């Protein structure tokens, strides 16, 4: 795994010496900040209304008001959706640029295994995403400072996000290996992830029923995240994301193996 470490370091350097990582992180944090503001405002507003209502009724205020459920669960869910838009931007360069510059030829003629190269790039992009998530820790910390908060659902929320991100990034890396055009790689990744997300909308209509409905529910890449956001770790959901990750990386190995120029 010596080569993986080297590639990881180089790619991480490339992320942070080009504007891409900063652009993606800034976008993510702006959007998340916006959602946090909206959710928190709504929370305090409802809280105030409830206090007033209790006072008028002469009843003791009901403190069973849950910030986990009202702020962080929807916030995590939004993070998953936003990531769907941003992950393709992080992965589109990874192999497409090598294909375009021709450096892939040097990389693959070095005494390294294809999978080592792929893992290095994958882990570098996952690290960027992890750093990005780490910066969102201010939201639960801020919330916990104001009201009581459960740690469990936050932990599962982040674990779920990392699993989800792995799947997104692996799909992106696969498309990036197919082309020398970064835009094409990004667009195909986005289209695929979007399709996997929109399956969820189909499930809520009458158009699909029975076996197909339950199958589509199982395959929806965002619906799979709901349990994590809610604080539940479901083995099936974890395996789903790991399977997509493994599939994406495995297909990339095959692409690199059969490179035909």
């Amino acid at each position, binding site marked *: 795994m010596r*080569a993986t470490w080297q590639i990881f370091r180089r790619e991480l350097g490339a992320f942070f010496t080009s504007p891409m990582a900063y652009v993606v992180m800034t976008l993510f944090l702006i959007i998340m900040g916006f959602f946090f503001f909206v959710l928190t405002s709504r929370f305090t507003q409802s809280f105030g209304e409830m206090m007033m209502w209790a006072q008028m009724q002469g009843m003791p205020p009901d403190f069973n008001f849950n910030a986990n459920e009202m702020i962080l669960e929807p916030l995590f869910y939004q993070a998953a959706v936003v990531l769907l838009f941003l992950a393709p931007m992080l992965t589109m360069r990874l192999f497409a640029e090598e294909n375009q*510059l021709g450096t892939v030829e*040097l990389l693959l003629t070095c005494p390294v295994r294809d999978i080592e190269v792929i893992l290095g790039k994958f882990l570098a992009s996952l690290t960027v995403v992890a750093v990005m998530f780490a910066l969102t820790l201010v939201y639960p910390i801020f919330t916990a400072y104001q009201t009581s908060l459960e740690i469990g659902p936050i932990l599962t929320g982040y674990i779920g996000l990392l699993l989800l991100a792995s799947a997104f990034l692996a799909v992106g890396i696969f498309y990036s290996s197919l082309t020398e055009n970064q835009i094409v790689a990004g667009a195909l990744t986005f289209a695929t992830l979007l399709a996997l997300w929109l399956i969820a909308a189909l499930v809520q209509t009458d158009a699909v029923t029975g076996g197909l409905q339950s199958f589509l529910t199982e395959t929806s890449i965002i619906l799979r995240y709901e349990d994590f956001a809610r604080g539940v770790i479901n083995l099936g959901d974890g395996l789903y994301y790991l399977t997509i990750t493994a599939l994406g990386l495995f297909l990339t190995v095959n692409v690199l193996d059969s490179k035909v120029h």
Partner: protein
Amino acid sequence: MIEVSHLTKRYGEIAAVSDISFSVKKGEIVGLLGPNGAGKSTTMRILTGFLPATGGSARVAGFDMAKQSLQARRLIGYMPENTPLYLNMTVIKYLRFMAALKGVPARERAAAVDRAMESTAATDVAGRLIRNLSKGYRQRVGLAQAIVADPQILILDEPTIGLDPTQIIEIRHLISAMANERTVILSSHILHEVSEICERVMIMHRGEIIADERTGELSKRLQHGQTIDLAARGDAGAIEKLLRGHPRIKKVQRLKSEAPGGAPRFRIEAGEEADLMPDLARALVGAGVDVLHLGEHRLSLEEIFINLVRDQGEREVA
């Protein structure tokens, strides 16, 4: 060191390389010569493990490229066509990265990179971004990464293409210096270049090797005897008749271009190795022709190539 037997690479119906066989001994410097699309790059890509072959086998240092490519790749330094490099890295960081990928131990890496930069005269650009380097320096960086792990085998695809004449000479010197003890295969479409660096030349055409010779012997064999250029003042028809009538001349060709003053020019092929020029000069002067130029014509790659292709065509017909 390198054993290629019945190697074939097909892209669908098209054979980029078809059934080639050759072997390269340790320490040999071989030039792969041919026009664009002849299969040079494909052959090199198979030898470096980048492309799988469709048929036949390639062994490098005893390792089968189809099965033991990883072991073979440890021994090869490769510079692909157009010298692909990471433009956003500095030279020194790039070379350290490549050295690490090629398995140079961490302790020896800095020294290996220094050595590679020194032997390619790239030390003075060590801290610069590759993006900002001239083509000549990029080429040196490409060579530096090829030798950074001190490989036994060097495979260089068109190492001087796109350089200006001074840079070409510099790179040629670098390659000659780097070649000592190493087995080198380099490709080019300039015969002159190959004959200067390489001791042996293989010519490829349409995916086949149509000649494999010591560098010096190639033009001799292909010329089938002496070729002479002549420019003479006088009646063109009469001179041509005189030449055609000469018993030792096999073939006369009137060239389209004329010497200054409208004097006709001829290319003459003698049917033998012996020097025809003194004899020819006497005959022309004796006939009252003013000889303006008389000299031996050396074949260019283009002519060698055309001859080879023609010879092969004749052989196929026969």
